[in-house]
């Protein structure tokens, strides 16, 4: 049984991304949106943690929220996939459960 985890806050605002990555089961999906998209950037204080987690979970980031913040896709950690809102909906369908890390 697979779970989609959604993280909507910056990892520099609160520890929801780090907690999510620590507890998400193998093969689960994680979607970063709103300020959560900052967790997908290269070279940040959490980038190594995120890179390491990519061996355990699939990580996605919401394109419109990246664009709203001026974060180019070339700034993303390799292996993180960009999705639009339709992709967000598809992720909730493909996974059996959705857990929001609020």
């Amino acid at each position, binding site marked *: 049984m697979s779970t989609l985890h959604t993280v909507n806050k910056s990892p520099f605002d609160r520890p929801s991304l780090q907690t999510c990555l620590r507890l998400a089961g193998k093969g689960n999906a994680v979607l970063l949106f709103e300020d959560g998209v900052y967790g997908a950037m290269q070279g940040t204080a959490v980038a190594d943690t995120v890179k390491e987690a990519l061996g355990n979970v699939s990580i996605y980031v919401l394109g419109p929220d990246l664009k709203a913040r001026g974060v180019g896709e070339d700034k993303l950690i390799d292996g993180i996939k960009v999705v639009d*809102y339709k992709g967000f909906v598809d992720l909730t*369908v493909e996974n059996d459960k959705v857990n929001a890390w609020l």
Partner: protein
Amino acid sequence: MKFGIQVNEGPYTHEASVSALNFVKAALDAGHEIFRVFFYHDGVNNGTRLTTPPQDDINIVQSWSELAEKHNIDLVVCVAAAQRRGIVDEGEQERNGKDANNIAPGFRISGLGQLIEAGIQCDRLVVFGD
């Protein structure tokens, strides 16, 4: 697939309400059903028709009302959270002896049971909040 949506934040505090709106629109476009949107905690502030944002701002309350009318979506405001924050419909106005009501078109006030029911009836429950 049948979706339930929970919104925990007001229309102009964080992004939750706009994210939820975008998600609902995308789900409808993909042919899914939105069984109910449940507004909880500060999310009840999405349900007042007295909201008057500047003209160049997105009118989030109106967007919910229009979406509900177009797609026949059940927009439910939590009664206990609404009472605390002054969101009132005709029934609540009468019951609590208030001099006015402010519920926006398409919204209704009901209890937490509606959220539980959405959790049972829907294939997915997606939560947006702070």
